[in-house]
C-alpha cells in the first residue's frame, strides 16, 4: 500500500502524440482537474501538476494519442 501511495504522489507524465491526435477536445472537456487545453487544434498538456491520474483522458481518447504515467 505504501508503495502505491508514493507512486501516486509522483507527478503525472502526460504525453500527447500530436501526429495521431485529431483534436476532438474530448480529453480537454472531461478532465476533472482542467489539466489540458487546446492549442493549434491539438491537445496540449497545460497543468500536469494538477493531474490526479484518473486516466479518463487516456481511456476516452479515440485516437490512441494520450498516455498518463
Amino acid at each position, binding site marked *: 500500500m505504501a508503495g502505491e501511495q508514493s507512486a501516486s504522489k509522483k507527478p503525472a507524465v502526460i504525453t500527447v502524440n500530436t501526429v495521431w491526435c485529431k483534436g476532438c477536445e474530448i480529453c480537454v472537456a472531461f478532465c476533472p482537474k482542467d489539466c489540458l487545453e487546446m492549442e493549434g487544434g491539438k491537445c496540449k498538456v497545460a497543468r500536469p501538476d494538477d493531474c490526479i491520474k484518473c486516466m*479518463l483522458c487516456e481511456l476516452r481518447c*479515440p485516437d490512441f494519442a494520450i*498516455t498518463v504515467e
Partner: protein
Amino acid sequence: MFDYLQYVRQENFPHIWCSGCGDGIVLKALIRSMDKLGLSQDETVMVSGIGCSSRTPGYVDINTLHTTHGRALAFATGVKIANPDLNVIVVTGDGDATAIGGNHFIHAARRNIDLTVLLYNNYIYGMTGGQCSPTTPRGAYASTAQHGNLEPPFNISGLAIAAGASFVARGDVYNVKKLETLIGKALQKKGFSLVEVVSPCPTAFGRRNRMARPVKMMEQLRDTVVSVEKWEKMTDEERKGKFRTGILKDIEKPEFTAEYAKLIEKMRPEE
C-alpha cells in the same frame, strides 16, 4: 498507462476515423479486455463487414478478416465452426448488422454460436455520408432523411434478446470503464454474445442534428445513459429520452460448436 501499442498495427495509424468518432474508444476498451483475459493474439480472429466500425480489424494485431457488407457474421460462423479453438470477435455497425446483414444477425443469435459481437451503434451510415440507418431516431436528420426520418428505429439489443442470444449488453463510449467490463463478460461467455455500443458519429450524425462538436455528443451520452439497475426504478415519464446500459440478458443454453462436437463424438466409429 496501458500499453496499447503491443496490440495495434502502428504502421496503419493515425486511423481513418474522424475527429471525435467513438470507434477508437471502443477499440481501446476491447484491447484492455483482451489483455485482462489474456487472449492469445495468434488464436484470436476479428471479423468485420463494411462501414466505419468495420475498419477496426485493420488496426489490431491479430488474425483479421474484413469482409463484404452485412456478411461478417456469416464469415465468422465459418471460421468458428471450422476451428472452434479460435476466439472469434465480430465488429459491425447498425447498418451492417441490422439492415443488409439483419438475417445473419438474428440467425447467429438463434444458433447461439460462440461469437462475441461488438456492434457500434452510431445511428447513421457514416462511411457513405450520413444516410439514415435502421437505428436513426424518428425525426432525426440524415442525408436521405432531410425532412426528418419517418421510420421508427430498431432496438438492437431487444432484437438480439428476442432472437435467442445468450448474452446481451449495452454500453457507451462515455462510460468507458463499464464498457470494458461488459466487453470482458461478453468475451468470456460461451455462446452468442452481443455488446451494443452507443458510439457517436459527430461528422455524419452530429452535424445534421445540432451536435457537431464531439464534446456535445459525449455530453449527450453522459446525460441520457441510465444503468439497468436505476432504470428499473424509474417511471415511464422519467425514462423518456434516456436509454439503459448494462447487462440486459445473461443465460446459459446449448452452444452450437459444442453441440456439433458432441455429434462428431457420437458418430465416431467404435474401436
